């Protein structure tokens, strides 16, 4: 507690970087996963190709990704955009499958009725399929948020600072208060992300919180 009280503003600024490096990729990753999931859900041949490929991306160790990306993207090794791209790749890896499964969870008779009333293509996707896939996509998004908050701390090893710095520094200099602060701060941040997603989902799906009337 004594360590934290004297480093409060440092922790706050590292937390802000952490939110940016874990949160922005979550948004970009979701936007990229939507068309991928849509394509995977549309055809039986595309599904295994897209889902396996994106799934494999998640198995690339984060340290390797952080070291390799600057060369591939042509950026300075300290550029935080490397981390944003890496975290976006992990997000897409997790969400492409979620989006595809969310879209396939839409009841067949709802789609049939929609088409039968003259709703088709993009309009059907935006007004019927996507809103009904929100609960499943949201569940996947919560997992991706946890994963991002956790993985991004590794970026301290390549010199992009965020809450992970407290862990590497605390370990190197054997400062227990700093280590504990780093761990707790990551957990609090993960909880904040989770709460935002849960509340957002509630607002988007008022139809789910309703009671089923007796017949």
């Amino acid at each position, binding site marked *: 507690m004594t360590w934290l009280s004297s480093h409060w503003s440092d922790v706050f600024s590292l937390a802000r970087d952490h939110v940016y490096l874990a949160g922005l990729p979550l948004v970009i990753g979701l936007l990229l996963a939507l068309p991928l999931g849509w394509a995977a859900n549309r055809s039986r041949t595309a599904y295994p190709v897209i889902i396996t490929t994106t799934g494999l991306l998640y198995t690339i160790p984060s340290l390797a990704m952080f070291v390799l990306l600057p060369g591939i993207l042509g950026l300075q090794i300290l550029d935080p955009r490397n981390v944003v791209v890496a975290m976006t790749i992990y997000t897409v890896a997790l969400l492409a499958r979620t989006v595809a499964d969310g879209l396939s969870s839409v*009841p067949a*008779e*709802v789609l*049939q*009725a*929609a*088409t*039968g*009333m*003259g*709703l*088709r293509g993009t309009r059907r996707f935006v007004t*019927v399929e996507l*809103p*009904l896939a929100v609960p499943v996509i949201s569940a996947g998004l919560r997992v991706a948020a946890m994963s991002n908050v956790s993985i991004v701390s590794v970026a301290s090893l390549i010199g992009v600072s965020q809450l992970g710095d407290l862990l590497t520094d605390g370990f190197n200099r054997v400062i227990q208060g700093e280590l504990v602060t780093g761990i707790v701060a990551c957990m609090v941040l993960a909880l904040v992300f989770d709460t935002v997603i849960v509340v957002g989902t509630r607002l988007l*799906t*008022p*139809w789910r919180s*309703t*009671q*089923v*009337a*007796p*017949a």
Partner: protein
Amino acid sequence: MIRFHGVTKTYAGGTTAVDDLTLTAPTGQITVLVGPSGCGKTTSLRMVNRLIEPTSGTITLDDRDTASLKASELRRGMGYVIQHAGLFPHRTVLDNIGTVPRLLGWKRAAIRERGMELLELVGLGPELAGRYPAQLSGGQQQRVGVARALAADPPVMLMDEPFSAVDPIVREQLQDEFLRLQGELGKTILFVTHDIDEAIKLGDQVAVFRVGGRLAQVSDPAYLLAHPADDFVADFVGKDRGYRSLQFQAAPRLTLHPERTALLGERPDSGRDPWVLVLDDADAPLGWVDTTLLAGPITREDLHRGGTVATVSGSLRAALDAALSSPSRRGVIVDDSGAFTGTVRAHEVLTIIEHTERPPLEEEAVT
């Protein structure tokens, strides 16, 4: 008017779902497509709004080839009701009903007004407008499904087993109200069901399909029951078709007999015949009582409620059933306002049946 001209649907694997179908669904009438599963009735229906495209043949709507119209515009001009209603779970009842008007670009106020009007038309209270489908019972959902299909007042309705997924009592209510609604609206309706009783009850015209997508017989229900075209149709129509065909025969020539009646609270003597018919203040029959079992004035608990009631303008089937189900063996007949007019015995109804002509065999029976 919807016309199928030699319509065939063959799938890639070589299965024929519909085989050379030629059929006319007349304007303002209910045409029921009925048959066992796999007979092509639903495929035929979905070819009308082009959810499925025919392999060959044409379908015309008021003499216009549907293939020449834009699919989405064709669909917006046809109400479509399916099993389980297929309501949008994320939209309120009112928004569900407004789906097609919104697609057609109606003003918000007009969509709302139309929605409330339809809720009332299908027998739902205005308090349901803001509910989500999951908050409704199966029967209510199905009513919303019908309201949604009617929203833009399309001249044509396509109904694919709309009442199959609800329990029998609700189904019967929905069928009765559907007939009442159709009496007011006069839509051209194609109705798919696997239930021959439903087909006979609802259809102005019934088209029986056999497995393999071939049409076995098309005719009005009375004719279908009296003259099944072949063994398949006879078998499908069922064993009690003789009895059921009575529902299409009005019973105007019944001679009614007076009956000893009583009111609740009275204490009639046990006469030669123990059964007395109890009426309410408006002369509507409440039930029979066995006077030999009466311990005091008649109470509601004493009433025998097993007997059915037939109306004077009803069918021979209803009159016969009233007699057969009555504990006194005398069938209760009421007038159209529900007031008791007299009783009839089963043998009297049977005598009339014996003197009633069956629908004559047509020269050109469709096979």
